[in-house]
């Protein structure tokens, strides 16, 4: 039975988490993502599925509660917006260093600093290039609709446990605050203690006599040990890059120009592509769904076909660097985007396309 609801992206995250059988959510309110915890508190899942929902005293506390829950093999998550996610960076690198699975949602707002509460995509670098210290990666999913906000919660947990790595859902104020139709999945039960013990033997579930201690740590004082561990991580990231790239293409078959955009900017650009096509401009769009791993190979393929690429993001130009690296100067790559909380309109993107690539 299809159950269609009209909800905000933030509400969809919360509903999806309960239905996916998530064990715990720890968060601290911040606009524009506060509806995530508000919805969880209103739904009271601790009375139904047993899911823990806790307002921590800060974002630093939230991410460290996630660290603790993840260490026990539990499916735990947090959500925040840009300034709050900055506070979580230490926890994230520890989680990555301890190889722990978790899901973090960033409903991005304009920065730097406390910035504005309006939508932005200026946390791309922080998310896919590190944020915290050390050679680690966050698998990053970029939803472009309220439906994807709901669907990606479970996808993110699957990836997190498959690779024992934190997964970021990188959204923004547009997707978080807008309402669209959503079809929610069936309720799934939370994992039992036996299931966790059998399927995730690394988890600290209580030592049995017949096995060695499980130690969860991100410290290796011996350089050679730390180097070997880093090689292990790099091998893992290579697997991720080979197997987990997700993207979507629109009207690319006969395209002479290509727009690359993710998240809400991709939704705006979809309209820009329609408008440009009405003007006779043959343009297509590639939407990275995973930002890490980035759809590098597909971009290389499209670069053979098009005359130029416009990277459109609500930032001063961050993803454009990955587009350029992929394309290796084979065709011109330009950036366009409003930022600091302003959102470009479909018409502005068409103008930029004409001025920066076609007319230029």
């Amino acid at each position, binding site marked *: 039975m299809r159950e269609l609801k*009209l909800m905000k992206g933030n509400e969809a995250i919360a509903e999806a988490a309960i239905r996916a059988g998530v064990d715990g959510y720890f968060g601290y309110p911040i606009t524009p993502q506060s509806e995530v915890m508000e919805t969880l508190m209103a739904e009271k899942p601790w009375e139904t599925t047993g899911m823990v929902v806790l307002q921590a005293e800060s974002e630093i506390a939230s991410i460290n509660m996630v660290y603790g829950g993840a260490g026990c093999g539990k499916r735990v998550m947090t959500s925040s917006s840009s300034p709050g996610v900055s506070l979580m960076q230490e926890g994230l690198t520890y989680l990555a260093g301890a190889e722990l699975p978790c899901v973090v949602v960033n409903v991005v707002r304009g920065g730097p600093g406390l910035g504005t509460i309006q939508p932005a995509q200026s946390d791309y670098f922080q998310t896919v290039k590190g944020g915290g210290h050390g050679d680690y990666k966050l698998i990053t999913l970029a939803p472009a609709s309220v439906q994807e906000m709901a669907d990606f919660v479970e996808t993110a947990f699957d990836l997190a446990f498959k690779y024992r790595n934190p997964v970021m859902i990188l959204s923004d104020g547009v997707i978080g605050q807008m309402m*669209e139709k959503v079809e929610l999945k069936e309720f799934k039960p939370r994992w039992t203690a036996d299931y966790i013990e059998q399927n995730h033997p690394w988890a600290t579930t209580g030592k049995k006599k017949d096995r060695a201690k499980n130690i969860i740590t991100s410290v290796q004082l011996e350089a050679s040990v730390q180097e070997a561990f880093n090689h292990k991580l790099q091998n893992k990231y290579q697997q991720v890059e080979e197997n987990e790239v997700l993207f979507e293409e629109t009207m690319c078959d006969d395209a002479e120009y290509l727009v690359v955009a993710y998240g809400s900017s991709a939704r705006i*650009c979809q309209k820009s592509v329609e408008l440009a096509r009405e003007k006779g401009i043959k343009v297509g769009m590639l939407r990275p769904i995973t930002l890490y791993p980035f759809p590098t190979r597909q971009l290389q393929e499209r670069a053979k076909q098009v005359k130029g690429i416009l990277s459109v993001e609500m930032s001063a130009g961050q993803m454009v660097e990955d587009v350029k690296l992929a394309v290796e100067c084979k065709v011109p790559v330009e950036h366009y985007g409003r930022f600091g909380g302003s959102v470009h309109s479909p018409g502005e993107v068409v103008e930029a396309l004409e001025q920066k690539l076609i007319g230029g």
Partner: protein
Amino acid sequence: MKEEIVIAGFGGQGVLSMGKILAYSGVMQDMEVSWMPAYGPEMRGGTANVTVILSDERISSPILHEYDTAIILNQQSMDKFEKDVKPGGTLIYDGNGITRHPERTDINIYRVDATEEAARMHAVKTFNMIVLGGYLKVKPIVKMENVIAGLKKSLPERHHHLIPMNEKAITRGGEIINEVSLVE
């Protein structure tokens, strides 16, 4: 069919909830919908606006720079959105508090004096439903039964006894809306 609408006015006029009811009516009619509020500081005591799209097909951008219809409920919103109506599009406004009336001659302009009517009906809170009724008279994109179903979905159950009053307001809006002729 695709209808791209902006509803703009003061915070507290029910701009966002009117948009939500319209969007839910679309859901009830098996349409694709999006509802994108301006959630920033401007809605705290200032102006509020929401972009609502109803379409038979998948909706691309929830953010627009031009609209099929602008529903305008204060002067600031008139200044901001009159120019953004597509040529041949529709502008609906409440004359209350408007000091500069719309001037464009390439769009269809309607006036629905909902503030006045809501006061006359002793039901000030149904103001936004009078406006919605006026809009649906001009653009009957959703059936009345689906609007009522949408109302039920967007109102908490404890307020369902207010539905007949809202239905009356919607009907009244349809009766009092008038086309404004700018051709002298």
